[in-house]
């Protein structure tokens, strides 16, 4: 009967360990909850928020305007074709559209090229451009699909015109006209169209039809050109996205452990020994903060250098901006790490609580899963995480090619995080170090 007693003892010990219980049950539940919310959404939210679409109409014809009106009437899309310039509404041009996408204010925009209506009338391909931030490939695909669907559904003549044009090209002028008239009669028979009234049917002889293996009468009536506005200079553009997220997440883990070393030193008596030596509490805490911050800066430098060497990440785009981001991120992560350590009693507790906080914050803040695929409300929550601001700053540099002045908001938020958490942590530790 020894084994049941030993098992009972282990359960008893487990029940006494709050951190063990949290690690076993709460952490998996919370992480599952977060990922569930990201991928599944809560309460019927299907996860995709309304898409804000910039439109530049270089054609400015009735047909192009009709297309814009139709797109604007769709629930999934909100069209922006003008912008405020000196308090007046100005029609959007390509430069302004591209600049907004590069800044991250918009994800995607379309440009209707001049000759759009003319091409429609002539059965030529309708030429459009989709300008987008490649991070938002999902939004790009949605817009592409919606344009194709709208044109095909609401302007079926586009397909017809294109088909007739192809028929004329491949079958020759005479045969093509026979085909066109036949098609018009068929359409008239089943659907009834005004255009087909009075058309004569002329059947071409079978032998006269060109035999061409490449003949594709249906063709593709729409020519959409994709214009990636960001990340095109990067050899490995997506690494720029992930390096920031992963760097911040692992930095948080390492600085929290470094902060916990203060607890170890308190528990093994070395802090007490220091305090009876000619050393003050503030000196001990300041030294520890500096150590953690220096280590954090070093860790980020190593990681970005690794990114440069292995993934060809261009870290030399704006060195002052990158160094500023590295320093403030290192400081903010250190402050949060030492704060987590300050609210714990021992290393074991630090491990479990930091796992919960860091994984949760990393998941919500975009370190694990790109924010772009998250529902709108999670994107709002993300703004309350350190990861979000750190990643925003780094991606602004690497991805959007922005400069020091542009990343000031990220620098300010991260500095505030540093000040708040450092103040709280030092105040807690100041008391804690003197506890028996």
């Amino acid at each position, binding site marked *: 009967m020894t084994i049941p007693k030993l098992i009972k003892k282990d359960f008893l010990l487990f029940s006494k360990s709050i951190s063990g219980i949290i690690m076993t049950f709460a952490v998996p539940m919370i992480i599952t909850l977060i990922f569930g919310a990201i991928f599944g959404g809560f309460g019927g939210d299907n996860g995709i928020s309304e898409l804000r679409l910039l439109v530049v109409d270089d054609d400015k014809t009735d047909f192009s305007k009709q297309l814009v009106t139709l797109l604007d009437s769709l629930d999934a899309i909100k069209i922006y074709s003008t912008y405020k310039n000196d308090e007046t509404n100005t029609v959007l041009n390509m430069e302004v559209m591209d600049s907004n996408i590069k800044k991250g204010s918009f994800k995607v925009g379309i440009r209707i090229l001049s000759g759009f209506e003319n091409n429609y009338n002539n059965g030529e391909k309708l030429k459009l451009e989709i300008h987008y931030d490649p991070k938002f490939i999902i939004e790009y695909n949605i817009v592409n699909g919606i344009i194709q669907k709208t044109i095909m559904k609401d302007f079926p003549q586009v397909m017809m015109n294109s088909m007739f044009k192809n028929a004329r090209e491949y079958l020759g002028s005479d045969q093509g006209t026979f085909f066109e008239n036949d098609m018009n009669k068929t359409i008239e028979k089943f659907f009834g169209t005004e255009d087909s009234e009075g058309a004569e049917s002329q059947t071409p002889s079978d032998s006269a039809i060109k035999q061409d293996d490449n003949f594709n009468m249906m063709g593709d009536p729409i020519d959409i050109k994709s214009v990636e506005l960001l990340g095109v200079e990067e050899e490995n553009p997506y690494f720029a996205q992930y390096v920031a997220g992963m760097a911040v997440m692992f930095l948080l883990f390492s600085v929290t452990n470094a902060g916990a070393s203060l607890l170890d030193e308190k528990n093994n*008596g070395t802090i007490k020994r220091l305090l009876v030596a000619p050393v003050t509490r503030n000196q001990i805490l300041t030294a520890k903060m500096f150590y953690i911050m220096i280590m954090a800066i070093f860790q980020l430098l190593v990681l970005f250098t690794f990114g440069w060497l292995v993934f060809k990440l261009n870290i030399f785009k704006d060195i002052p901006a990158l160094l500023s981001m590295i320093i403030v991120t290192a400081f903010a992560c250190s402050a949060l790490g030492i704060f987590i350590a300050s609210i714990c009693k021992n290393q074991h507790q630090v491990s479990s609580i930091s796992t919960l906080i860091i994984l949760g914050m990393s998941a919500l803040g975009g370190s694990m899963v790109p924010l772009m695929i998250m529902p709108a409300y999670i994107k709002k929550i993300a703004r309350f995480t350190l990861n979000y601001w750190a990643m925003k700053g780094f991606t602004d540099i690497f991805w959007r090619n922005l400069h020091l002045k542009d990343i000031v908001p990220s620098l300010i938020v991260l500095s505030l995080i540093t000040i708040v958490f450092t103040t709280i942590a030092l105040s807690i530790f100041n008391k804690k170090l003197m506890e028996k």
Partner: protein
Amino acid sequence: MIELRKITKNFGNIQALDNFSFDVKKGELFGLLGPNGAGKSTTINLLSTFIAPDKGEIFLNGISHKKATLKMKMSIGVIPQEIALYDDLSALENLQFWGDIYQIPTKELKNRITEMLKMVGLFGRRKDKIKTFSGGMKRRINIAAGLLHNPNIILMDEPTVGVDPQSRNFIFEMIKGLHQIGKTIIYTTHYMEEAERLCQRIAIIDQGKLIAIGTKEELYKLLGDSETIILELSKNLDIEQISHFFGNFIISDLSENKIKIEGINLKNNLSEITTYLKRSFINIEKMDYIKPNLEKLFLKLTGKELRE
């Protein structure tokens, strides 16, 4: 040299020290003896300036603790009860760190480290990590770290806890050596034998209160003339019956065939006891005369064992 005046220290609802006073002369090896939780470590923490008293005042070399200066901290060497060392650093690296903290000049520190390592008998292991050391070795380096800056006052908080007899003897010899060169030492322990063996004067404390203070001899006198004999007998004895015959003594059953007899002038009455046992056809297999000791004094003054 060291003076504690009416010190009271509370930790929440727990009173660690209550109106506690004693003084230690320069060059004295002074013992603080008491069970766990008696207030020994609190006294060391107060003396080392780690904590401040709630009431009362402490003087070191005539200077109040309230005016604790860097110079005062430099004059104290603390050997904590914990092994306050960095496990992943070598003995040498640990001593270099603690020497740097005490601002010992580099050249002098190098000599002091060599001196200390030789004193604790671990010069040969100086490059080994602390975590590879035995408990006794760690204790010795722990002592060396507290003595590097050559303090005049040494506060040792149970420095032999958990060490093997060999290391314990080594530490005792080291303490005697420090005493011989004129260091003032306060040594806390809950081992009566250590206090008796090492200390010139001993303060016995319990539950934060001073129970008795003096030299060994002065403390033994507090026991009075009471003597103790332990007899191991050939067979079991009826305690009630023998107690009836020798009413002046306290006779108690220790274990099977083993009795303890306590009383004044016991030696002179021993022949009567042996005669009584012979008549009862009981032989004395073994007889131990227990000398007066601090354990007995503690029992007498507090009504409980020292190691409780």
